[in-house]
């Protein structure tokens, strides 16, 4: 069975669903951040697959921009987690209630 565009898109959807489950279900803030990275990678696979099978390069350029935003998000997110851990002694997302009304 020849591998085509649909296979890559379905792989991307599976990875995105796994990341979505992890981001919603987990309590450790670092694991939530890891799940978000999986979701960003899944989107990148879809972008590159469209770029390959639609034969235009813009998909890969967008994938590069997604990587840039993911790197910035990881740096700021992990810095936030460490700052919160310093003041609250926990990284449990269900115990972050500083901004809860």
């Amino acid at each position, binding site marked *: 069975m020849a591998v085509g565009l649909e296979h890559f*898109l379905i792989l991307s959807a599976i990875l995105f669903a796994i990341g979505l489950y992890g981001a919603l279900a987990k309590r*450790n803030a670092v694991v939530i951040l890891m799940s978000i990275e999986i979701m960003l990678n899944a989107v990148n696979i879809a972008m590159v697959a469209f770029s390959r099978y639609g034969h235009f390069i813009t998909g890969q350029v967008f994938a590069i921009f997604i990587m840039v*935003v993911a790197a910035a998000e990881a740096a700021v997110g992990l810095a936030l987690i460490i700052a919160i851990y310093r003041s609250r002694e926990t990284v449990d997302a269900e115990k972050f209630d500083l901004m809860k009304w």
Partner: protein
Amino acid sequence: MALEIAFWVLAAVSVGAALAVVLLRDIFRAALFLVLCFFTIGGIYVTLSADFLAGAQVLIYVGAIGVLIIFAIMLTRESRRGSPSGRLRLPALVVGLLFLVTMVLVVVGTDWNVVAEPPTEPTTSAIAQALFSGEGFVLAFEIAAALLLAAIIGAIVLVREK
């Protein structure tokens, strides 16, 4: 044929590693499986003949973000308590499965307009043309540079000792 085998192996390993990330209770092992997942996704870029992106994936995700996440796990001494699931576990499972079923039905049901040309290789010069030519993405490129600078300064300010 070799490309097909490579795709199936890489896809199976990446999905298994992603499942391990969200299911394992040991958070450090989850981080190691995340690095494996990033690496196999780089391999999938190779099967899509995106050579530049495969290199960037290994450098940025496997190298930089993997190390950053492992650092964060070591700095927050939460690894003893593992990574338990919260109250939203069942709704999250339902949402994830609904999303998956919807996407698979849409992908299978759509008539994709696939071009039968061979892929551009190597992609580096084509990406550079798209990024820096007159009608390209120069402005977005400069904004990305400013975003990275802001992220670096923000991270330093956040973790600095008072």
